[in-house]
């Protein structure tokens, strides 16, 4: 079947070297199931306040996250040789999401590829390695704020795959927060996109 994707007819899709979200290939139900069943309800408990997903009118019935995207990312000890994984590691970064789910797929046949966390944006911990370096157990999902700096260490051997789901709050948080205030998790109400100015 891989020969099908590599055939001249479909080679231009470059499927092995470029992320593709599950919706594009018709498997968006996986993302939907994880989002509606776990990400959104758990976020109500854990991230609603810290990530400013609520306002005075928010109840437990409210849709604090209203957008999701799921994709599979790969890391390999030999990314140029591997047909499936385009990276070996990932530098510290934040995601374009309010909440991120990261579930390790495959078998425990790889080493390295730990997920490290380096503090939330605009907190004193930003940039510092905090907590314990996390060795991802396959099948276990990690849930964190998208604006929590994180990285993936070098995959030393084998291939590591992760199902990643980004979730956003367009109707609430991003409707009254400009990208700059959003990125820096500004907790005050002074954003010019906020209600105070509109």
């Amino acid at each position, binding site marked *: *079947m*891989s020969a*099908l*994707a*590599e055939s001249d007819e*479909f*080679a231009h*899709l*470059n*499927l*092995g070297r470029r992320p593709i979200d599950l919706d*594009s*290939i*018709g*498997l*968006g*139900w996986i993302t*939907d*199931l994880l989002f*509606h*069943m*776990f990400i959104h*309800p*758990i976020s109500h408990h854990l991230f609603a306040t*810290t990530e400013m997903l609520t306002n005075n009118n928010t109840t*437990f*019935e409210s*849709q604090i996250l209203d957008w999701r995207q799921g994709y*599979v*990312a*790969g890391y390999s000890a*030999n*990314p*140029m040789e591997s*047909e499936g994984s385009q990276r*070996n590691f*990932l*530098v*510290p*970064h*934040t995601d374009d999401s309010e909440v991120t789910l990261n*579930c390790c797929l495959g*078998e425990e046949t790889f080493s390295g590829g730990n997920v490290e*966390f380096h503090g939330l944006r605009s907190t004193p*911990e930003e940039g510092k390695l*905090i*907590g*314990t370096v*996390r060795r991802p157990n*396959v*099948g*276990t*999902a*990690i*849930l*964190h704020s998208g604006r*929590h700096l994180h990285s993936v260490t*070098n995959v030393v051997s084998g291939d590591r*795959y992760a199902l990643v789901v980004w979730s956003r709050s367009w109707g609430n948080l991003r409707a009254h927060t400009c990208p700059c205030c959003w*990125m820096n998790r500004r907790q005050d109400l002074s954003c010019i996109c906020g209600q105070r100015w509109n």
Partner: protein
Amino acid sequence: MSRIRSIICIIIIISKSETTQSSSSVGNNYPSKSMTGAGMVGVGGGAINEKTRYYTQPHDSTKNHEFGNDTFGGWNPNENLAHLLHALVGLDRYPNYLDRIRDSSDIDSLENALESKLSDVRRQRSEIIQRRRDIYKLVVRYTSSTKELSDEVYDSCQCNVLWCDHPLLAPPKTWTELRHRKILTEQAFKVAHQSAASTRKARNAKSGKATEHTSNSLGDIIDGKAQVHLIQSLLEDFLCQETFDVYSFPLLTNEVRRNLLLVCDIDLHFILIRC
């Protein structure tokens, strides 16, 4: 063919390795990495949304500014994202915002910048539509769908209908099927199922109508038509705090991971593994 692509990728990556930098990485503490060894340079050195940055010296607007002439000396919305954002806010906030600009070339700059962005949107949209059409053809070929697809379905390029009968990747229709197929771990299934049932009972009790249609059907939950409120007491045993503000929980079973990747390695390798 794939070998040639790999070589081209190496050349491109080498040429970008000096300038590629994460747009959302922490600058001071984490200099950009490049990996060396065995012919690999700069692989994986950026963040997910990598943007090559070519830093230039900031424009010295004092050289062009003439007092009393109201020219936008350093104005360049094509080059400076901030200028574009300032303009958008100004247009939103002030009537006749552009009236202060006497030099029509500055208005032209703004118009060009906006049209450039619009052009980007249209170009990407067109590329995405074509790409999704091609992926759709690929998935049709793979699933060897013998369904008689209507023109409407085919034109919509909705791949999801192609998986309806797939033994492993069809969406489950009921909670029983979800459990039987062992997609979720027992713990994850229990938390979700019990919570869904509890939510329905609570809603029915609140409404006072035993027969009120408050669905906890799996299909409605997947479609987002029914909300799930996870029971807090179940979450306490389910969630583990790994570090500050990072939590983990068992989600996917060995079976589904193994079967998915087995199928993927043999059959779907080009989709899930190679995504």
